[in-house]
Structure formats: C-alpha cells, structure tokens
C-alpha cells in the first residue's frame, strides 16, 4: 500500500526552524479526512500541511484508481486549536480527476485564525458502507 504521509509544520516554517513530521500508514490522514460514504475509486494518497506567513496551507493528492474519469466534490473546514470552526461553511468545489490521475489540490486557509482543518470529500460514485452508517451519503452535493 502506498505510504501515506501527513506533514504538519505549523507556525515554524516562517522562522525556518525544523518542523515536526508525522507519517504513518493512513491513520493521520483518516483523522483529517471526512468521506461522505466510502469512495471506491478516489483516495487521499498524500496530505501535507504547513503554516507559512501566518496562514495554514494544505496540499492533498487525490489518486484515482479507476481508468475512468471521476468527479470529486471537496471542501475544507477550518478549525482552531480547540476544534471550533473559525470560518464560514465553504462551498463545495467540483474537481475532475482523470483516469489513473494523481490530482494535487493546493489550498490556503482563508483566515489567519485557522490552525487545523478537516477535508470533506464526496464523489458521486461513492458507495454506502454498513460499517459506517452515520457517514453515508445518498446524494451528491448538487443543486
């Protein structure tokens, strides 16, 4: 399994200091990602966060294991140290991921107050999972 890395370098990047790095086999990524249903073809292969010039910057690599194009909807939830949201609910953003493509999403927090985040993901080709019935999406975020 592809090694998944979650890198946090909060607050120290602008000072050029050594940054804490966390890496594991997906546990850290799972704590930052909320999938609406279980995504069959799209996976977060890599997730990094750094605080630069006072702003939290996040880079997520979305990997498409299918040969077919996949539609992705995503948005971030920006949080403070205590887990409170510090920005209004973001709009869902559509993103097309080509077959077998690794798509890189680069996002900067819209507020200096953000120190943490959650990445919400939804793909219309999601399947629902009996193991996680509380987090099941039956409709894409279309209007």
């Amino acid at each position, binding site marked *: 399994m592809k090694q998944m890395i979650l890198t946090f370098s909060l607050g120290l990047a602008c000072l050029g200091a050594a940054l804490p790095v966390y890496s594991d086999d997906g546990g850290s990524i799972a704590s930052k990602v909320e999938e609406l249903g279980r995504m069959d073809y799209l996976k977060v292969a890599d997730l990094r966060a750094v605080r630069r010039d006072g702003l939290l910057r996040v880079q997520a690599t979305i990997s498409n294991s299918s040969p077919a194009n996949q539609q992705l909807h995503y948005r971030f939830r920006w949080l403070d140290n205590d887990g409170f949201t510090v920005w209004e609910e*973001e*709009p*869902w953003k*559509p993103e097309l991921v080509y077959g077998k493509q690794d798509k890189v999403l680069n996002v*900067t927090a*819209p507020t*200096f107050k953000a120190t943490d985040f959650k990445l919400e993901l939804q793909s219309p080709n999601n399947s629902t999972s009996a193991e996680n019935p509380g987090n099941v999406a039956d409709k894409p*975020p*279309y*209007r």
Partner: protein
Amino acid sequence: MKFSRFPLLPALLALSLSACQTLNSPTVGKGISYGDSKAVETVSTDLGSTDIQTTSEKMTQSLLQTPLLQDIIRKRGLLMASPVENKTSEYFDTKLITDTVLSHLQKNGVRYVIAGDEMQNQVDELRRQNQSGLYKKSSAAKVGNMQGAQYRLDGSVSSITKRGSGVKDVYYKINMRLIEIESGIVEWSDEKEIRKVLNY
C-alpha cells in the same frame, strides 16, 4: 357503556393519537424548499453561485498570501474596490464577486472605504447632518474628514462560448488586480479559469 358519561372522550383520544403520528415542520406553503447555498450548482452553463463563491474564495486566499496585503493589514492601510467588469455577453451582477472578496478580507483585518454607487448615500448623509439644520453641530459628522484609499481592487470577467453538434462549451476567465492608486502600479493580480460544458 363506560364512555357514555363522557361522549367526547373517545374522539379526543383518537385525535391526540393521530397527532402523535405526524410531526409538522415549522413551515408555511408548499412547493418551495430551501436548498444548500454551498452546493455545486449545475443548472446551466451561465455563471452561477458556485462560480462566484469559488472565485471569491480563490482571490481572497491569493490576496492574503501577498506580503503587501499583510503589510496593509499591519499598517491599517485602506483599500477601495471598483466593481468587477462584466465583459461577457450574459447578464449577472459582478459586484457579487467584489463584495464577497471585500467581506472576506475585512474578516481578516483589512479596512476598506466605500466607493462608486455607495458614495452617493455617504454624501447624502453628510449633507443631511451638516446642511439640514436638524442635527446638533457637536454630534454631526464633519465634512472633509473622509479618508482616501491607497490601493484599489478591480477585475473583469471574460468568456468564450463555442457550440458544436450536441455540445456547448463555455470558458470563463476572471481576473482581479490590486493597484496602488498613486503610482498606478499593479501590485498583485490573479485569475480563475472555469470551464462549463453542456452536452445535449
């Protein structure tokens, strides 16, 4: 009969039971429902709410990363915004983009002064307080104390529309710039591209 002395009791009991089975929502009217204002809007290829929201978001994030803007926040500098110019053939209120960007910036400490259409209301109010004779001089806002901005935000929306057999392709390009008013130097600019395809 047991209920003969209270003929209304069975009816009241039935009514209360039926009331327990349905829960009425605190709504009035039928046929209209509230949707998610943050949902991806794919009603038509025209610019829509998702385009406005994602464009404003991208521009705000890009501006916040600029050292100049962080300097403006620190030094309590002033911004003003000219409305984003609509160069497309379709009608939509481009002020939505400007207003959202300004609103997001202000939440981060950016101060901006009013301009354009809003200026008339400001002038009217100053005149009312100073010339109508209705207000105490000590409490009236003084004329001549408005502050000028050092930087101006402007932008434009352009589009290219193409039609083929069974397909309509619309490409939008939204551009925004931050200009130093005194020198006219463009200190920051960014753009957002959007492609919308309708297959029919």
